[in-house]
Every structure is written in structure tokens, then in C-alpha cells.
């Protein structure tokens, strides 16, 4: 098998079309992406779970203690499980089971919502992550 030399097409087809400023733009763009990823994915760990039922806060529990909480809703009881600093909805009477299939929540700001049963679990960190967002 002939080894494919991919440097050759790169040199011939791509490099002549890049001017010095284009490299600068690429560099700036790359920095921009990295900065965005670092600031937006800074993965602040959550330390408590806010459980809501019918739009009102049902309970706020720390993630440090493993437990199961039964939350009543209009359709029945949803069960919130907290284990190893993670939280999930382990059982819910909703027909589509979206919030159950969402699985474990770990980072601050993550939220699982069971719409028909009006139950939600939101993880919160020590500080609120965004007050507002502007572009």
C-alpha cells in the first residue's frame, strides 16, 4: 500500500490561501473558543438540590447526605435519589419518563423537570451562576 502523504495537498491547496492576517484571525478564534469553553464549562460542582413541586420549592437538601425523597405531584409521587453528591429522579408517574431517563445531575445549574407531574430538581452551587446573559 502506498503511504498517503497528506502534507502535500495541505501545502499545495491550503497554505497559499492563508495570509498572515488569516493566521492571526485563526489564532484569535482559537483563543476565543478556549476562553469560552473555560468560562462556560467551568463545571462548578453543585452542593445542594432544589426540589420543586407545582412551581413552589418543596425542599432544599444538601448533596452531602445520600437519601431518597418522595415528592407528591398531581399525578402521583416522584422519587428523587441523592447519592455520592449526585441527584436524579429515580421514579416518576409521567408517561414519557424524560426526567428519569435524563439520569444523574452533577453540576450546578443542571435541572431535571417532570412536566406532567410538575416536579423538578435543580442543582445549585454556592453562588448563582448567571444573573443574566448578554451577547
Amino acid at each position: 500500500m502506498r503511504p498517503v502523504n497528506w502534507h502535500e495537498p495541505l501545502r499545495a491547496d491550503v497554505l497559499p490561501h492563508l495570509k498572515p492576517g488569516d493566521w492571526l484571525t485563526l489564532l484569535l478564534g482559537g483563543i476565543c473558543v478556549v476562553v469560552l469553553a473555560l468560562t462556560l464549562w467551568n463545571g462548578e460542582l453543585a452542593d445542594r438540590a432544589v426540589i420543586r413541586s407545582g412551581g413552589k420549592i418543596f425542599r432544599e437538601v444538601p448533596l452531602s447526605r445520600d437519601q431518597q425523597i418522595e415528592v407528591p405531584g398531581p399525578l402521583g409521587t416522584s422519587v428523587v435519589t441523592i447519592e455520592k453528591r449526585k441527584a436524579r429522579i429515580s421514579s416518576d408517574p409521567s408517561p414519557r419518563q424524560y426526567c428519569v431517563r435524563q439520569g444523574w445531575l452533577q453540576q450546578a445549574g443542571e435541572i431535571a423537570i417532570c412536566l406532567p407531574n410538575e416536579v423538578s430538581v435543580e442543582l445549585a452551587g454556592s453562588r448563582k451562576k448567571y444573573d443574566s446573559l448578554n451577547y
Partner: protein
Amino acid sequence: MTTTIKLDSSAEDHHIARMAAVALGLAVLENAIPSPLPGVKPGLANIVTLIVLARYGWRVAAWVSLLRVVAGSLLFGNFLAPGFFLSLSGAVLSLIVLAAAQHLPSRWFGPVSHSIYAAFAHIAGQMAMVYLWLIPHAGIAYLIPIFAAAALVFGAVNGVIAARFMNTAVEGFSAKPS
């Protein structure tokens, strides 16, 4: 009895329509490519916008780009649906940025720079539209780095394609409409 409606159209109108049709073809082509995340797509039609910008100026590029958005939405059946406004906001912000970027010294900056700036503007316009209108939840911020990375990669690739095309295009294509 038939009545013929005659619209006066100049050679430039025909030229713009032809360019928009090419862009539309590329948009249809890329619509067939599966995307891992809605919104992440190569934006091949922008290659046409870049070439038109370099050859015929910003005004013609704006016509071609906006015609492509409107006609494309009619073709895909999402005219005035959310997808249409996402395309439109992206295209408008791209054009605004291109209006500024075209004045960069051409000795140093080529279509690749234009393409990358426009791609970032495109995604910024779309995210603003998504946040202000469709999903006003801070959670969409998690997707921004992915969209930004895609904008950088696809912007650079489209820019190289446009630059390569312009450097090697046959003379017949580059003939200006009289």
C-alpha cells in the same frame, strides 16, 4: 386571455439571481448532511457570499445572502418559522460584520479571515435569537463553546475553499456583468 407581467430587470439582477441560485444549491446539498447537533452545519452557501463579496462588493453579497435565506426557507418549507428567523439573524449579523471586515487590508487579510469573522457573527446572531426568543434559559450557554468551535473550523474551511476558488477560477466566470 393571458396577460404578461413584465418586470424590468437589469443584467445585475440576473447575475445576483444566478449567484443566489448557486448558494441555494449548496444549501440544499448541505441539508442532506446529517448534523450531530442542530445548528452545527458547514454553511457551504457562505462560500458563494464570500466570493461575491470579494468580486462585486458588499451590496451584491447582501442581496445574494438574503435572497438565499428567503428562497431557501421557501424551499425547505420553514418560511417565517423559527428556523427561518435563525437563518435570517445569522445572515444579517454576518453581513454587518463582513461590511466591517472587508475593509481589513487585503494585503494581510483574505477570505479566510472574512469567513471566520462572519461565522462567529452568524453563530452570535443565532444564539442571541435563541436566547431572546426561543429558549430564554441560561442553560444554552453550555452549547456556546461547541458552536464557537464549529464556527472556527467551518469558517476556516469555507474561507480556504473560497480563496482557492478565486485564485484558480477560470476567467469566464469572473467576467463582470456589463
